[in-house]
């Protein structure tokens, strides 16, 4: 399907925080209570619309275990966005954020947008990390922040879409070099078409694109 831009994301964070579930909820709109442990890296994709433009998100869900850390590192450089996830019911996953962030900052391109996610917000009774703490951490490190639930789907769309919006804005500001695919951004056929001729919009090429 034609798209204006393609963004590459990675999802990182300790094992068991719900990374795979977040991806599944976003791509397939379902929740799997018993999910296989991710081995290495798994791929998922979905189309979203921002500012009337079709944007394709390609997402790599990584394994959180230490033994896969070096594999995960290979994905930082080529990603435009990262979702850094912790589990609000497990303080240790919050405590490990600094390590994750250092790793990400060290291996990624400097413009990578990082979204901090406190997942499992549906488990309010078992909460160990206050929302304010997440907010404070995000503020301190210049990240966007959201609490989500892969189970109820609360804020899941928003998390992925807001990250894309941030990247999109950076493109508009000219911060990203969109011609360098190593940044995890690619201009799609749709974009090229609309740039070339304005009437392209009415053309049959995009008819299949649909409205949403």
């Amino acid at each position, binding site marked *: 399907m034609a798209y204006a831009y393609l963004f590459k994301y990675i999802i990182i964070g300790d094992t068991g925080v719900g990374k795979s579930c977040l991806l599944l909820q976003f791509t397939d709109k379902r929740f799997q209570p018993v999910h296989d442990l991710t081995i*290495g890296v798994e791929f998922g994709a979905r189309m979203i619309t921002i500012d009337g433009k079709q944007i*394709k998100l390609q997402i790599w869900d990584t394994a959180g275990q230490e033994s896969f850390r070096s594999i995960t590192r*290979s994905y930082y450089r080529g990603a435009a966005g990262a979702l850094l996830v912790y589990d609000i019911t497990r303080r240790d996953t919050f405590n490990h954020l600094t390590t994750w962030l250092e790793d990400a900052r060290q291996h990624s391109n400097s413009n990578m947008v990082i979204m901090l996610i406190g997942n499992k917000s549906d488990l309010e009774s078992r909460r160990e990390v206050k929302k304010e703490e997440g907010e404070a951490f995000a503020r301190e490190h210049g990240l966007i922040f959201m609490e989500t639930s892969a189970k109820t789907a609360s804020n899941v769309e928003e998390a992925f879409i807001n990250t894309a919006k941030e990247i999109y804005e950076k493109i508009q500001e000219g911060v990203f070099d969109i011609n360098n695919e190593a940044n995890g951004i690619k201009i799609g056929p749709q974009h090229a078409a609309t740039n070339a001729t304005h009437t392209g919009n009415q053309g049959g090429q995009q008819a299949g694109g649909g409205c949403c």
Partner: protein
Amino acid sequence: MNFLRGVMGGQSAGPQHTEAETIQKLCDRVASSTLLDDRRNAVRALKSLSKKYRLEVGIQAMEHLIHVLQTDRSDSEIIGYALDTLYNIISNDEEEEVDDVEEENSTRPSEDLGSQFTEIFIKQPENITLLLSLLEEFDFHVRWPGVKLLTSLLKHLGPQVQQIILVSPMGVSRLMDLLADSREVIRNDGVLLLQALTRSNGAIQKIVAFENAFERLLDIITEEGNSDGGIVVEDCLLLLQNLLKNNNSNQNFFKEGSYIQRMKPWFEVGDENSGWSAQKVTNLHLMLQLVRVLVSPTNPPGATSSCQKAMFQCGLLQQLCTILMATGVPADILTETINTVSEVIRGCQVNQDYFASVNAPSNPPRPAIVVLLMSMVNERQPFVLRCAVLYCFQCFLYKNQKGQGEIVSTLLPSTIDATGNSVSAGQLLCGGLFSTDSLSNWCAAVALAHALQENATQKEQLLRVQLATSIGNPPVSLLQQCTNILSQGDKINRRGSKIQTRVGLLMLLCTWLSNCPIAVTHFLHNSANVPFLTGQIAENLGEEEQLVQGLCALLLGITIYFNDNSLESYMKEKLKQLIEKRIGKENFIEKLGFISKHDLYSRASQKPQPNFLSPECMIFDHEFTKLVKELEGVITKAIYKSREEDKEEEEVKKTLEQHDSIVTHYKNMIREQDLQLEELKQQISTLKCQNEQLQTAVTQQASQIQQHKDQYNLLKIQLGKETQHQGSHNDGAQMNGIQPEEISRLREEVEELKSNQELLQSQLAEKDSLIESLKSLETSSGMNEQSSEAASIRDSEQIAELKQELETLKSQLNTQSMEINNLQIEKQELLQKAEAFAQSVPVPGDSEKIAAKTTDVEGRLSALLEENKELKNEIKSLSEEKTAIKEQLDSSNSTIAILQNEKNSLELHIKDSKKEQDDLLVLLADQDQKIIAIKKKLKEAGHPDEEEDELIIPVGQDDEFDEDEDDDKNDIEGDIQL
């Protein structure tokens, strides 16, 4: 190391001793010389020795060479030599060429040599990291040998080297840059390096894909001319296969990246036949395999089906079908294309429907299915091609009830083409089933079985099929004909293995009768069938007959398990007693077990594709192995069960059936709800769209409202200021901000206009009096004819002037009345606004009254403050604001009405003016008459000539007047002459 020393000691005793010394000397120079030139020469010398004295150089020089790589990086020449030397030591490539000439037994140790040296090299994992960093050097003499060396290391000890690269930061990503190298040699060897790197390592495969490998490789393939490209295309395809085979994540990425669409041009091979070079055949073969990797039946079902859909949508399937029907395609490409089409359509209704519609470009056009089946039952076609066609047919029917129905219907009496012009699929299958070629028998039986798979309707339909045998004999049913052949099979002389015919027919019968009590009854109805089966099973035959015995046991078991007891003589219980008496339960079960214990059984159970090492191995069908797995246990149980248990089971079965029907009911319900859900989802998405649009509209409106509010606030602030102002200066006239000024300005204008109008009126009055005086002149003309003459001339001039003046006055009146109109509108608006602002504070109607009102300023001030509060409250609520706006609208409507009235009255005014003008014209006409009368009277009085002369002379005297006022003069003359 010990091993190496052993090899060296054994193989190289005498002559190489001096070489070993030379190598040692060179190594010393490399290690100790302080001059770069010297070291470089020594390394170059080592390089030249490294092919011939691979072992010695390897053992003595490796660590020195690695040291050079670490310390002499600034000199690309010496690095290049060192890498070349290491490559020569580690790679077996050069050796292999020599090996071809030499004895075969030397291959083993030299292969081991490469692995041994690799092991030494990677003992320090940093060496690999070092090599990776050297690959970033752009210099050809460094990068090229570096690529080759790393490839060699990977070939020898893949998993270990892969692991080191995986944990070195950006290791894989750096290697990906090789594909972008402008030097073709490096790019091509880069592809080979990546092949070795990605072999059986899912994690690396994913990283390579993440680094845009698909895009790059597809670009290279396109640049090189797709299948017409050289070995580079082949290498790229092999790398793509490495990345995609058994890697679901990468397959998903490949599909989501819209790369399937890019495969379509690969198969645009056209009919013009630019020739089929060996390379092209290889390339195309790999391309087809790559398609199959994406739609393999062993992939997760969801993954395969989404790829299948994409392949139809982008036209790839259609392209493949063109190759299928093209001429001049090499047989192995054709076979692989058939296999590929098979897997692209398997279990995918849309693709199956499309395939059913494909016609061969023959005259008349025949369905592709028919053309393919002709090959399947043609013994002169290559075996693999016939297997491919069978696979294609199976895939076409897999989960395709519609297709199954269509195939079976070509056998039914009502639809058979009486003209016999076109061959149908059914005819071909029957022909195959009863031909004298056992492979055709087997293929046709299995193909027909697939038309019945999980389809109770077609199992019953097929019972209707009647076959005409020899002339004069009554027709026989297809079912009966199958059992006839089974029992008489030995009498017919067939090509190929007899067992294949019987196995094929038995598999068909088992499939047909399972889950179909009516078919079981039909089968049992022929009293020859059961004795034949029991006879087969009971006999003590050779090993080759064991499979047939097993299949007969299965068939008999099916007639028991799916028996609805509708035949008195062959009720369940009776058949079981028969087994016990004639065969024995144990014996029966043992024979039944022969099937799954057969050598070829497990191979067939693995994959749906009929893939046999040789024609003799064509025994089991994949779907049939599933049936065996399903039935073996239940039949065994059924045989051992007592009558009571049977009855119980019967009841259980009944309730199960009930359950089944309930389940089907719910399934249908779910299906319906699914549809509804889908519809609702679509509705939601459209509603979402609408919602978004509405939301933007709302935000727009909100901002408008905000603007209004702001304006409102601004006015309020101004009002506040002015209130203060007023408080201190007692100036009540300005309390409404701009309005009072405007109102006074308007008032002035109105005054002005009024005075204008008055002026006009007075002018009009003057004119009236003039006319009046003219009248009186006329009455006195009789007394003073001379003077009346002159007066009449003056009169006519005056009348002309008067006319003109009247004209201009009229237009002035018009514009002014329009102005009044506009001003009145403005005034009305302003008044309205003023009213809205100050209900309690009366707008000063007249500036003269202001002075009088200064006394109650304080009172008004407090009123204003209250007003202020009120306004604040108003602002707080949006709805109130809206109603206010509405009210304003209403009042403006009323204003419009007022203005309409105004307009009407103005129109009246204009009418009056017109009337006045008309009156004036009438007056003028009267005047003329009177003048004529005066003229007559003058004539009568006796001055006719004089009168004329005098009338003409003054006119002619003034030349200017004559020219400018010609018309007027003529008019006047005409008037006068009348």
